[in-house]
């Protein structure tokens, strides 16, 4: 095997062929099906119903993103700059909404705020906002915290010793320097909110967002309108991505006005800020996310759940495996390739921010008569692809090339260098990417709902069960998803 690989690695043609396969895979199975819908010129009228759905989607996305920024940025600051022992627990808690699949989250949040729990929010706008805030919050906290970790602490110390009160320092030094990460995090949050389907259906009632309307059209057989609205969603999210990428790269922020007295006063209110940040996390995010536990109990009919569990895991495992096989070479090409790197990078980002329901519509049209399970798997292949590519490409870019050169100069052949030097260094990112892809496939709702007719993955089943008011079965399915997710995270985090 070793010798064969060595010989293969030396052959330029073989390498080229392999790269060709990888790129073809990207185009034939990921990109073209994803954007296939845009090649069909839809003849549809832009109805008032669509207008208001799009307006609703934007209003919800903006509100929940802003809420997450207001509560998430102080949380990120606490996570990175405070060294309380209990911070490790908070650190784990922040990720919880990512671990709880959105459909379970939808069920849980609806129960918490709705009549069954606090009775504060009825189905509609604010309940959707509460739900979306819960699952976009981690995106903001994580991206901002990561940027703050990278930031040289000396900038902040310099600011303080030059006489800036903590809040002034944060506003004039830290925030401008992590600005592009806040923007990227906000974009991720915004597009996630814009595209979320399954959980939103559970809490929307008669209220329509764009993705739920797409599903409605599809269910009622109005494919023209479903396709039209999907195309709109794809265009909007892709344009947004391009704008934000451009905005994030520009720099230069004026100091602006300084209010020494006022900001000194507020800087003294650390405790208030910390209590707010932690309180929001617990009351707004964690408890609503786990409220489904209340419905756990015996006497549920587990048989319907088991079948879905098997389907879900089989699809997730297969999809992750295929993506790893063809995603890692692609990631290396993006990181090392000089010419097309940026283009591929943008295309994978476009998939990442795209509403999955639009993807589902596109794929079910593209693959047409293919077996249902296979279409679902192909759809999952498309939207989990970026989860592997992004972190691995970044890790490869971060590998010091001189390490590989050193190995070459010590006599290792390219394939050996990859196996003994590069692979061990990027391994954590591969594991993280595989984990994300697996989890995303396991918990995805929008695209799966758009394709599914008789095959039901766990999240689709949960939506179904809640519709039929089988809450115990729904809670059981949520619990299975959560326990598995948590176990996977726990094992991979432990190292």
């Amino acid at each position, binding site marked *: 095997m070793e010798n064969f690989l060595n010989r293969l690695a030396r052959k330029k043609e073989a390498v080229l062929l392999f790269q060709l396969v990888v790129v073809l895979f990207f185009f034939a199975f990921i990109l073209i099906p994803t954007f296939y819908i845009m090649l069909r010129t839809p003849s549809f009228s832009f109805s008032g119903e669509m207008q208001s759905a799009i307006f609703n989607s934007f209003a919800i996305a903006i509100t929940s993103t802003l809420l997450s920024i207001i509560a998430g940025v102080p949380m990120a600051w606490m996570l990175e700059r405070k060294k309380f022992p209990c911070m490790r627990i908070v650190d784990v808690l922040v990720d919880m909404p990512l671990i709880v699949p959105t459909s379970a989250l939808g069920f849980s949040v609806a129960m918490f705020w709705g009549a069954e729990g606090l009775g504060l929010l009825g189905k509609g706008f604010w309940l959707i906002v509460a739900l979306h805030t819960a699952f976009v919050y981690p995106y903001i906290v994580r991206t901002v915290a990561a940027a703050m970790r990278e930031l040289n602490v000396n900038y902040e*110390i310099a*600011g303080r010793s030059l006489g800036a009160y903590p809040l002034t320092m944060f506003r004039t030094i830290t925030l401008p320097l992590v600005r592009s990460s806040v923007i990227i995090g906000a974009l991720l949050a915004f597009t996630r909110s814009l595209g979320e389907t399954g959980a939103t259906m559970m809490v929307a009632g008669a209220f329509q967002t764009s993705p739920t309307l797409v599903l409605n059209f599809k269910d009622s057989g109005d494919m023209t309108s479903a396709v039209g609205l999907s195309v709109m969603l794809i265009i909007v999210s892709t344009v947004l991505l391009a704008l934000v990428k451009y905005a994030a790269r520009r720099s230069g*922020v004026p100091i602006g006005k300084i209010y*020494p007295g006022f900001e000194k006063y507020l800087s003294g209110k650390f405790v208030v800020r910390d209590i707010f940040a932690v309180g929001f996390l617990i009351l707004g995010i964690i408890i609503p996310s786990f409220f489904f536990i209340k419905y756990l109990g015996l006497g549920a009919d587990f048989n319907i759940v088991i079948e879905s569990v098997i389907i879900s895991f089989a699809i997730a495992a297969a999809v992750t495996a295929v993506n790893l096989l063809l995603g890692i070479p692609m990631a290396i090409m993006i990181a090392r390739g000089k010419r097309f790197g940026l283009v591929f990078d943008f295309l994978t980002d476009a998939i990442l921010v795209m509403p999955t329901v639009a993807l589902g519509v596109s794929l079910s049209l593209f693959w047409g008569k293919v077996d249902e399970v296979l279409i679902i798997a192909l759809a999952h292949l498309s939207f989990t692809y970026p989860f592997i590519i992004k972190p691995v490409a970044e890790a490869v870019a971060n590998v010091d090339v001189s390490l590989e050169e050193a190995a070459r100069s010590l006599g290792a052949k390219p394939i050996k260098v990859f196996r003994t030097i590069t692979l061990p260094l990027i391994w954590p990112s591969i594991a993280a990417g595989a984990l994300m892809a697996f989890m995303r496939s396991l918990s995805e709702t929008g695209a799966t709902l758009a394709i599914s007719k008789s095959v039901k993955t766990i999240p689709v089943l949960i939506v179904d069960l809640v519709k039929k008011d089988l809450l115990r079965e729904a809670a059981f399915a949520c619990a299975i998803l959560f326990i598995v997710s948590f176990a996977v995270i726990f094992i991979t985090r432990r190292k």
Partner: protein
Amino acid sequence: MPTIEFKSVTKKFGKVVGLENASLRISDNEYAVLLGPSGCGKTTLLKSLAGIHALTSGRILVDGKDVTDLPPEERFMGFVFQDYALFPHMTVLQNAMYGPIVRGAPEEQTRKTAHEMLDLVRLSARYDEIPENLSGGMRQRVAVARALTTGSKILLLDEPLSALDAKVRKELRSEMRRMVKELGLTAIHVTHDQEEAMAIADKIVVMRKGGIEQVGSPHEVYANPQTLFVAGFIGEANFFEAYVRRIGKKAYLSTLGRTFLVPEMEEGPYIAVIRPEHIRIKPGSEAKVVSSRSFGAYVMNELDIRGQRVLVRSTEALSGHVGIEIDESKIMLFETPERGLDEALEVD
């Protein structure tokens, strides 16, 4: 007019001791250098003065006023970092103006002061550039200007020259000393480079393992080291095992196979420390020349005398066998350290 006093300060990072019971006084308009190997606590001492680290115990007084519990923004001290820490999203001028502006000073006045300070560091022509476009030396000069625009009379420098090229380093250090003297500042400068310390300091504070070993002028710490560590850390030195024997009222020191008459001393084992320039070369065959390296102005030789390595300075390169003569008035004697010579000299 600031004088700075550390009163038995201790800083622990969990179980690791950063500073242990260190006391120090620095007078007005003094250029003090904290010198020691990495991990000796010199940066910790500086950062606790700036308010970046909170002390575990002890007090810090500035002009007799207790500043121990003040946050950094209320201490009015200029801090200069090894990595410059110029705000990358601001121009040179905006960096220099930052201090007064965040304290609410009027903009016009601040702009004027900032330009004056940039003038002082000879960078006024480049006020509109972003730090990224400047060389390392220039960035550090901007950082000094930025620290001075606040009008603070205390300048704290944390290894400010370590990231610079040797040539730039030498230029900038004399420039910094000149500025501190002209503006009547009190400066504390942290370094691990003993040559740098000798070149700029009024007062050198040698530190080791969280404590202060010796405080004195550059000449004092070189000529009269109080501990073996100081003798070894500053300049080159030979360490020989020695023994003092008393015969009648006289004390005789024997080391390196010779015996010297020394002043009143107790009998017992000692460590004799002799600088390479206090050993003269003379014709003879007692020592074998192992290596001989020219540093331009002088030659440093490594000799072998009965299996002992001896460093000797000379003006010409040596070879073959030579004889030596020790200037006995320059021999420094230290008690034999309990945990051995290696431990006493160890720089961690």
